[in-house]
């Protein structure tokens, strides 16, 4: 069954003596995964056209006069397929392809950014691992040639798989890249008048299976094996691109899109990628403050109790996790007597190319706020109206959660600051010490930006995803759910009992009927489409998931 509920015609075949059943139309590369057989490939990509040029994915199909390429061969009932695991011919063909791919390759792994995550290295080790018989002089091609502001080319490392060319042709439609010349003189290039410069341009580096295309701004900054890797979600907009983040010494040193056919294929926008750490403030709140002066947690929390009397505006950042929204909802219901809740939400106009992937908001989890019932309807209108009302003095108190609780467009309004200072109680649960919000709030409580915490997000298409913590939390900070819990406790209410982000996630998965039966591991894989998810009756047994990293 596909996710949209339509029954698919299934086909049964044998791969490496194992019977597998897959949907009709599946190619042999994908089908082999079901038999735990790897069919290696360079040029193939599940979301691009199939050129069949690398010849790495050759497999033996019984009855076929020669080896077939897995990418272009669809499954058929009763087909008998052999990969390198059970066919000497396939093994030889793959070893041969690798030998040929490497004859003109400079073998400069020692200075190549791709080293450690390079398909030439990996496959050569797995499928050839023999010294080359090539004694001739290698071809020379362009080196260190910038193709545009983001990407740089090493022509000699290129294996002419054309993934980058096809991406720009088929996905962005911008067509900047071409493969010039013919034979072994061919080389990736742009037309001199038109550089590779589109909103998704960095994706070609992810797609490049070798070190031919690398990021200009992350060039030569680290060896990949010295990095820690986290699979997370980009908080830039509500598309919720699946990403893999490489961190070294507390710094993001590379970001790659992670394959998810239901969300971002394997694409990512440059704004999200190259600005992945843009939400980590340069200057951190390291302790609570009262009217700009450092204060103890107890004093600050006591002051925040002022929110409980009078009408309160709750301004929420749209990239808070679902768990944080759930706690905020409990806080609003149980602690505040009279509150309006709005989310910093504004839409923008996207260009045609941006619209391929990017959502017209900067609100990664607005669907999460809707899910828990904090907001609904026209979010942008509610937000702008609330700001107007605040400036008119309609609210006695203001609670701000998250650095991004004020849209960039609204940061320069002095009327906002004035209104905040006139509020009888203004509390900010924030991490950025220099932000407009931190300066405007009478009480600030140091919390954590997106990359320092784990939790769930719901994207624009209502897919529940799990974003893992990328870097360690800043000194003196507390999770915002915990801070809300402390204020509630001071007001005599118990809204959360948990020690870690993971505890909060588990208790939400256990308590929320619409999420029954889900586990962190299951959500982490490809996300869960909430529109088609049927909650399971049995409670989630999270201990069995073996997922202790959250």
């Amino acid at each position: 069954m596909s996710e949209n509920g339509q029954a698919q015609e299934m086909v049964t075949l044998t791969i490496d003596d194992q019977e597998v059943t897959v949907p009709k139309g599946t190619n042999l590369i994908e089908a082999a995964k079901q038999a735990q057989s790897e069919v290696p490939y360079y040029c193939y990509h599940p979301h691009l056209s199939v050129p069949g040029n690398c010849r790495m994915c050759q497999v033996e199909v019984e009855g076929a006069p020669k080896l077939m390429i897995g990418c272009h061969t669809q499954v058929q009932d009763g087909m008998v397929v052999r990969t390198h695991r059970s066919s000497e011919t396939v093994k030889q063909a793959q070893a041969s392809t690798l030998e040929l791919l490497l004859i003109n390759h400079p073998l400069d792994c020692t200075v190549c950014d791709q080293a450690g995550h390079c398909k030439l290295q990996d496959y050569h080790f797995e499928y050839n691992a023999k010294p080359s018989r090539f004694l001739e002089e290698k071809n020379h091609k362009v080196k260190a040639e910038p193709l545009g502001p983001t990407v740089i080319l090493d022509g000699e490392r290129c294996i002419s798989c054309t993934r980058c060319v096809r991406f720009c042709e088929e996905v962005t439609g911008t067509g900047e890249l071409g493969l010039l010349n013919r034979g072994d003189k061919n080389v990736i290039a742009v037309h001199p008048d038109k550089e590779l410069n589109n909103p998704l341009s960095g994706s070609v580096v992810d797609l490049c299976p070798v070190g031919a295309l690398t990021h200009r701004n992350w060039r030569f900054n680290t060896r990949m094996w010295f990095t820690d890797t986290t699979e997370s979600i980009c908080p830039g907009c509500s598309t919720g691109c699946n990403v893999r983040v490489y961190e070294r010494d507390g710094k993001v040193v590379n970001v790659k899109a992670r394959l998810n056919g239901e969300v971002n294929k394997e694409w990512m926008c440059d704004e999200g990628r190259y600005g992945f750490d843009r939400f980590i403030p340069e200057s951190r709140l390291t302790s609570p403050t009262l009217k700009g002066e450092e204060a103890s947690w107890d004093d600050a929390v006591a002051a925040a109790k002022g929110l409980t009397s009078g009408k309160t505006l709750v301004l929420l950042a749209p990239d808070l996790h679902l768990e944080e929204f759930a706690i905020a909802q409990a806080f609003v219901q149980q602690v505040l007597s009279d509150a309006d809740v709005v989310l910093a939400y504004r839409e923008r106009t996207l260009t045609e190319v941006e619209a391929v992937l990017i959502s017209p908001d900067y609100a990664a989890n607005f669907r999460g706020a809707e899910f828990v019932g904090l907001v609904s309807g026209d979010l942008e209108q509610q937000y702008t109206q609330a700001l107007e009302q605040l400036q008119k003095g309609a609210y006695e108190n203001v609670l701000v959660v998250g650095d991004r609780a004020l849209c960039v467009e609204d940061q320069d309004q002095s009327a906002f600051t004035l209104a905040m200072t006139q509020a009888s109680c203004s509390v900010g649960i924030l991490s950025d010490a220099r932000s407009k919000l931190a300066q405007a709030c009478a009480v600030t409580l140091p919390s954590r930006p997106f990359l320092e915490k784990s939790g769930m997000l719901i994207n624009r298409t209502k897919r529940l995803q799990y974003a893992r913590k990328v870097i360690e939390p800043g000194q003196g900070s507390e999770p915002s759910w915990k801070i809300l819990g402390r204020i509630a406790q001071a007001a005599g209410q118990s809204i959360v009992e948990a020690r870690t982000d993971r505890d909060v996630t588990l208790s939400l998965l256990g308590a929320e009927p619409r999420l029954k039966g889900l586990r962190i591991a299951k959500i982490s894989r490809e996300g869960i489409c909430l529109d088609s998810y049927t909650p399971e009756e049995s409670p989630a047994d999270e201990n069995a998931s073996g997922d202790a990293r959250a």
Partner: protein
Amino acid sequence: MGEQRQILLTNINEPDQNTLSAAESRGAYKAIRKALEMDPLKIIDEMKASSIRGRGGAGFPTGLKWSFVPRDTGKPVYLITNADESEPGTFKDRALLERDPHLVIEGMLCSAWALQSNWSCIYIRGEYAYPYERTKRAIEEAYEKGYLGENIFGSGFTHHMVIHRGAGAYICGEETALIESLEGKKGQPRLKPPFPAVAGLYGCPTVVNNVETLANVPWIIENGGAAYAELGVENSTGTKLVSASGHINKPGVYEVGMGYPLLQFIEEECGGIKDGNNLLGVIPGGSSTCVLTADECKGVNLDYDSLKNAGSSLGCAGFMVMDDTTDVVEAILNLSHFYSHESCGQCTPCREGGHWIEKIFRRIAEGDGRPGDLELIENLCSQIGGHTICAFGDTMVLPYRSFIQKFRTQFRERISEVLKGIERKRNPMDFEVGGVH
């Protein structure tokens, strides 16, 4: 069996045969009149009955190819004449297009009617400027006469014909590369399936046939498929144009009945070996076929089966003769340069392997051959053949393998001279300094 027959070259030496009036006075455009009164499917039956096989090199039965074209897709059917003729050793299509273009046009018209195609195109290699001009003029004449355009011969059939110049790329002779090129792209072969008969030019059903194949169609229509099948020998019906070149006294285009004895062809048609030298070997079907040594040529006939049994193939009958003064190392280096220059570069084995082999052959020729080089080339051939997108890789290795296999002694001698420190003065066939491309 094996006697010479004239189907295609009957009027080739008439100086005015390229004009419509002269061609028509000698019988041109009779077959199309007859064809238009026939059921299109009946023509396909006649083609099947003739057993004619494609003359471009692969030898696929033409009638069968036509029968693969679906007739109910609602999409137009396109007919393309492959006049890219770039196989080294071949120049027969050039002769037809230059000297008797109306024969080709008429063949295309008959085929177009059979396929119910309203648009056809002659894809002619860019270098053939003169054949282009002659054929283009012939098409214009046919339009002026109403033999092309709307309501041809009052039949209600409409057909438009275009002639399209390539721009220098051997690979465009491969039918799917040709289609890509015609669509305004680089000429790079497509993955198959789908085959052009189902999804070809602009995604529509398309038939691509060689010039010579289509030039046979008028005769088949006029005389019937069965009569054609009487000519030649079993599995190789009709006549074949042979482009003869190399060390012979009378090179040129010859039409022979299929099954004509190879050595007799050299002696009687080609006037024997030049300068009274002895025959070393023949590449019988164009450079992408296996070389036959003088010994192997004995008893072999010019037809599909006989040449196949001899370990080579008829290909497109680009018949290249080498006498015993030929330096085989230089000869195969010459061809290996051709193939690496013409590889489209799309798939790994051909792009990388082809160049590698050229480099090894060059090293051997330059006096730096090493023991194991020949075995390495043979091994590389097996890494290329059968592993590429198109037949270019499969066929490029045929001359390499056969040269090494059949002239191993000469190759070994060359390598051992190096080891013994003997210096040989090279007599290279090409000019090493890099050209414009």
